[in-house]
């Protein structure tokens, strides 16, 4: 039977400054609490900026509206990519790493000053890049800043500051782990969620080092110190950063999935070995995926591309498919153990759909897997990439992963951070209840609109496709779906920010009393410790419904994948 980690007494002394959470019974170091708050605040600030830009560029690509002029479109597109894909997500992950390496291990924050230094560098870098792109037209280079497109040196410097700051905060995660182990704050293995966060942290280290390998030479090249910078080499290193950075998000998101499932349904992982092996598959194979971006580049052999793009043998995909089974299966067992054993899906009907964390978890898993994962593997296939490279199918795929997937999960998690860490009462609860559905639905439309436009050849990062001459009328329709989806998603984003701001800025500080926000007074996290081996293995509690769901997923995966080979077979011969 699983137990809450904390057992050891804290040493007294000036270093230890903590409170005991009344809901989770976890000890929260006050340094950790303040660091989480600081990182979460910056995450929301950059989310607001990126969301505003999202609205404006979506209303421009929606060809019927076509709001901005070309310069502003490309400028805000640049910032949207940076603020959302990097700043919002990485700030949020840093908050998660501080939480995972201390509270979940009964440990103290061993290097708060270093962490604050890292946070400050990230904040300076993140804000500076916004200033540079807004005021310097030459720095409108999009998120990827492909050499030889040359931005202002300050542009690269802000990337470097942000990355170094992130690296420093990640290092404090490892320092905390080592100190916690040495001070015997926990015994045996660390919790699964921390294991997942550690996977994310290890991925983050080499991701950021590769980012340095790409951007530091670009910085010197932009100042004229380095004369030549090969665009192919830059692409290789840039995607060594850009792609694994998304895998950091993936690992952190899956860790948060496990946490949300435990906090809202009270799961006990079905098999710790199974889930941990899945994380280890990420660790070993997922960085090969940077090749996804180089599949139609000159100069690379078929063998190099095929091995790398497939994560050796789709082993990282296997990792995700394992999580795709193990999380719903654990939810099914936990709900069946409560007596919801009727039929294949009786447990689903009785799930806490009105609980924001559960809603966010389900939306995130569906959008990430069924849309993001399936389309990602398909367009990441060496030959099929020729049909998709740099069309709107690309952003269609990654809006399903990082917007509908990661961001929805992070948003849902925030609602629990507000009472548990900020120690403020969650306000506008009915907004919080609907927000994951609104946001998720919006991002589904965004992704589908982009994917179907891309299938018709519409290019990404393009201010006005009508220059291309004849554009099929159906493109107007699919771009309108994308535009309407963006409006709905932005509405969901506004709901999120409003709930967060109203909760944090109004009302007094209150100690949390309840784990669930809307759907009851029980505490699933503590309930989960009561699930015995007998509950887990009882024939009535077996996750048969989940097995049906994952096979349905596989069928959809196969249909989409094979259809794309068929589409490829219809185009011109090329070798």
């Amino acid at each position, binding site marked *: 039977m699983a137990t809450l*980690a904390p057992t050891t007494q804290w040493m007294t002394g000036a270093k230890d400054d903590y409170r005991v959470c009344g809901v989770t019974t976890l000890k929260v170091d006050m340094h950790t609490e303040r660091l989480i708050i600081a990182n979460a605040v910056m995450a929301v600030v950059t989310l607001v900026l990126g969301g505003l830009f999202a609205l404006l560029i979506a209303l421009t690509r929606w060809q019927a509206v076509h709001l901005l002029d070309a310069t502003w479109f490309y400028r805000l597109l640049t910032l949207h990519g940076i603020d959302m894909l990097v700043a919002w997500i990485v700030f949020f992950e840093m908050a998660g790493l501080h939480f995972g390496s201390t509270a979940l291990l009964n440990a103290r924050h061993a290097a708060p000053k270093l962490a604050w230094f890292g946070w400050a560098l990230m904040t300076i870098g993140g804000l500076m890049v916004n200033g540079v792109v807004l005021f310097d037209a030459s720095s409108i280079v999009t998120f990827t800043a492909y050499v030889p497109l040359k931005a202002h040196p300050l542009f690269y410097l802000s990337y470097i500051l942000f990355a170094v700051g992130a690296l420093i905060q990640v290092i404090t995660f490892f320092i905390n782990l080592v100190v916690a182990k040495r001070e015997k704050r926990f015994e045996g293995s660390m919790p699964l969620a921390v294991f997942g966060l550690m996977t994310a942290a290890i991925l983050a280290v080499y991701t950021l080092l590769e980012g340095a390998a790409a951007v530091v030479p670009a910085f010197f090249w932009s100042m004229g110190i380095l004369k030549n910078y090969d665009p192919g080499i830059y692409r290789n290193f840039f995607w060594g950063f850009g792609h694994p950075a998304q895998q950091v998000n993936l690992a952190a998101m899956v860790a948060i999935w496990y946490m949300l499932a435990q906090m809202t349904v009270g799961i006990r992982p079905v098999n*710790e070995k199974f889930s941990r092996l899945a994380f280890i598959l990420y660790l070993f194979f997922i960085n090969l995926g940077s090749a996804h971006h180089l599949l139609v580049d*000159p100069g690379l052999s078929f063998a190099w591309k095929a091995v790398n793009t497939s994560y050796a043998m789709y082993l990282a995909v296997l990792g995700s498919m*394992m999580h795709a089974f193990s999380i719903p299966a654990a939810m099914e067992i936990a709900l069946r153990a409560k007596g919801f054993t009727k039929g294949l899906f009786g447990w689903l009907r009785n799930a806490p759909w009105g609980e924001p964390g559960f809603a966010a978890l389900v939306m995130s898993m569906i959008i990430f897997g069924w849309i993001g994962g399936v389309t990602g593997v398909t367009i990441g296939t060496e030959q099929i990439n020729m049909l998709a490279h740099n069309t709107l199918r690309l952003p269609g795929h990654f809006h399903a992963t990082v917007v509908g997937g990661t961001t929805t999960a992070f948003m849902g998690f925030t609602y629990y951070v507000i009472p548990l860490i900020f120690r403020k009462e969650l306000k506008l609860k009915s907004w919080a209840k609907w927000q994951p559905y609104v946001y998720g639905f919006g991002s589904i439309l965004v992704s589908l609109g982009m994917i179907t436009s891309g299938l018709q*050849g519409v290019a990404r990062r393009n201010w006005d496709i009508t220059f291309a001459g004849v554009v099929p009328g159906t493109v107007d329709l699919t771009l309108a779906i994308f535009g309407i989806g963006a409006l709905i998603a932005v509405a969901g984003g506004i709901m999120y920010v409003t709930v967060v701001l109203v909760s944090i800025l109004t009302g007094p500080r209150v100690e949390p009393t309840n784990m669930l926000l809307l759907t009851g007074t029980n505490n699933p996290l503590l309930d989960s410790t009561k699930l015995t081996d007998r509950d887990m293995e009882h024939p009535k509690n077996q996750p048969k419904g989940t097995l049906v769901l994952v096979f349905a997923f596989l069928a959809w995966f196969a249909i989409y994948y094979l259809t794309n080979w068929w589409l490829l*077979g219809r185009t011109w*011969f090329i070798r």
Partner: protein
Amino acid sequence: MLAPERTWWKPLGRLEKTWLTVAFVWCIFLTLMMPLWYFMGKQNVPTETYRISAADFSAKVNAFVEQYKVGEDTINGVTFPVVAPPPGSDVYLRASTWQWYPILQLEVGETYRLHISSMDLQHGFSLQPVNINLQVLPGYDYVATIVPTSTGDFTIVCNEFCSLGHHTMVGKIIVK
């Protein structure tokens, strides 16, 4: 979020084993599809590449245009030469901000060696509506051996951001 029990290295359950096996078989299938198509498919990503300077490539393009020029045509108000190379020959296409030069006139069912390179920034060769997309880098002569299988006017869109006039970068291939 909770520490696991002391011994968590346990055998997998029946349903987990089933799913793991099926998922692994699917992954192997995904892996095999690529080499299978590489040897048997008609549409593969070109790999033939040479280093070339912008000046050298430009000289080849100009010689090519001079040799096979058959007329002129306009794209968005700008006049371009129309070049009709013989089947089987080397064909050159130059990408620069913000144009594809020249307009190519090809014959359906014939094979051509299409050389693409950029004079300045990175560009994206996106042939529509057949939807073939390739990355174009300065300093690299990327050779695609193509066989047009349909006739008509085809648009080349640039789908890699190449500074502010990017969306105006449009070219043309005519297949007869």
